[in-house]
C-alpha cells in the first residue's frame, strides 16, 4: 500500500469524518423509518389500520331496521321513505350497540321540520317548502303530519 500523501492528510481526515457522518445517518435511518412504510405506497401501512379502527357514531339505517321494522313498514311509499333514520334522530351507534341502556332522544319536531322545509329561494323549486307564518297554526307539525309518513291523505 502506497504511503498517504502527508500534505493531504488533513483532507483524508475530513473525508473520513464525512464518511462517518453519512454512515451514522444511514444507520439511524435504517432503525428509525417506521415499520411498514412503503408497503402500499409512500406512507406508513399502519396508518390505514389506525384510521379504519376509529369508532363510528352513526350506526347506519340497516342497523335501525334490524329492530324497528315497524317504522320501516310505516315509511314505505312515503316521501320520507329514503331518509336515513339518523338524519332526524341523530347519531345512534351507542344505542344500536346497547339498545337497553342508551336511549335516543325524541327530536324537536318543529325546528327539525323547518330545518329542511323552511322556504328558501336557493332550494330546488320542486322541494316542498313552507312559510311557517302562513302554513299551519303555529302548533307542532306532528299534529297534522306523521314524520314517518308526512303525506296527508
Amino acid at each position: 500500500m502506497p504511503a498517504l500523501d502527508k500534505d493531504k492528510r488533513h483532507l483524508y481526515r475530513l473525508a473520513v469524518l464525512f464518511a462517518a457522518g453519512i454512515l451514522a445517518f444511514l444507520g439511524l435511518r435504517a432503525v428509525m423509518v417506521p415499520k411498514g412504510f412503503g408497503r402500499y405506497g409512500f406512507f406508513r401501512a399502519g396508518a390505514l389500520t389506525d384510521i379504519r379502527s376509529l369508532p363510528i357514531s352513526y350506526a347506519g339505517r340497516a342497523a335501525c331496521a334490524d329492530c324497528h321494522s315497524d317504522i320501516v313498514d310505516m315509511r314505505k311509499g312515503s316521501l320520507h321513505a329514503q331518509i336515513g333514520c339518523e338524519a332526524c334522530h341523530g347519531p345512534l351507534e351507542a344505542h344500536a350497540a346497547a339498545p337497553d341502556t342508551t336511549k335516543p332522544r325524541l327530536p324537536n319536531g318543529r325546528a327539525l321540520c323547518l330545518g329542511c322545509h323552511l322556504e328558501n329561494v336557493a332550494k330546488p323549486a320542486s322541494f316542498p317548502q313552507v312559510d311557517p307564518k302562513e302554513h299551519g297554526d303555529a302548533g307542532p307539525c306532528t299534529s297534522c303530519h306523521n314524520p314517518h309518513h308526512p303525506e296527508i291523505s
Partner: protein
Amino acid sequence: MAVDRRIFLQETGKFLILTGVASVAFEHVLAGTAEAAENYHLTDHWWAMAIDIDKCIGCGGCVRACKAENHVPLEPFYFRTWVERYHVKPEDMEHPEVDSPDGGYDGFPERYAQGDGTKNFFVPKLCNHCAHSPCVQVCPVGATFESPDGVVLVDKSYCLGCRYCVQACPYGCRFIDPRTNTVDKCTLCYHRITKGLTTACCEVCPMGARRLGDLKDPKDPIHAFLRDHKIQVLKPQMATGAKVYYNDLDGSVR
C-alpha cells in the same frame, strides 16, 4: 311460505350482523397488528362520491353529521365538508355572490328575494379525493397519501404540521386541527366505508344528494349516475383527477 321466508331472512340477518360485529370486534383486537384480519381488500375498491346539486336543500345535515362522526372542532374555521350558497346574476356569471355561514352547519337563513331574476343554489363541498392530489404531491414525508382504494388520507401520527398540503389544495379542503397541530381533512369516512357502511354525510343526507360510490364495483349505481347526467368536477383546469362528481354544476361555481 311468506312467514317462513321472513323468519329465514330475520335469522340470516341476525347471523350476518353477529358475524359482522364479531369480525369488527376481532379487527379491533388486532388493530395495530397490521392487516392480518383483512376482510376488506384494498385493491377491490376505488372510492368516489356523486353529488346531485339539483337535490341539495342546504339543510346542513351533512356538515353536522360530519363534525359529529369525525369529532371535527366546532369553531367556524374547521370543516371536512361544508355547503356553499351561490347567488348568480345571469349578466355577471363570472362573479357570483357566495356565502357559507358557519359552513352551513345551521342551514342558510334566507338572504335573497324570490323572483329577482337571479339563480340561487347550494353546493356541498368536501375533499375531492383526487387521483393526482396536489396535496399528496407536496407532503415532504409521506404523511398524507392516496390509499390503494382511492381515498386521500392523513397519518396523524406522522404529520409534521408544515401546512404545505393546505397551501397546495386548490379546493380549501384542509385545515390544521388545533388540538393535534396536524393537518385534518375528509377521510371519506374511511373507518365506515371499509366496514360496509356509507359515509356519515351520505347517511344523513335527506335528499340523497350525496352518494358514496365504488368505481370498481360494476353493480354500483354511481356508474349509471355518471352515464346519465352531465357531470363536472370542481376546477377541472387543475387536472387533479378529482373524484367528487357533480351533476348540474353551474359554471359559476369555484
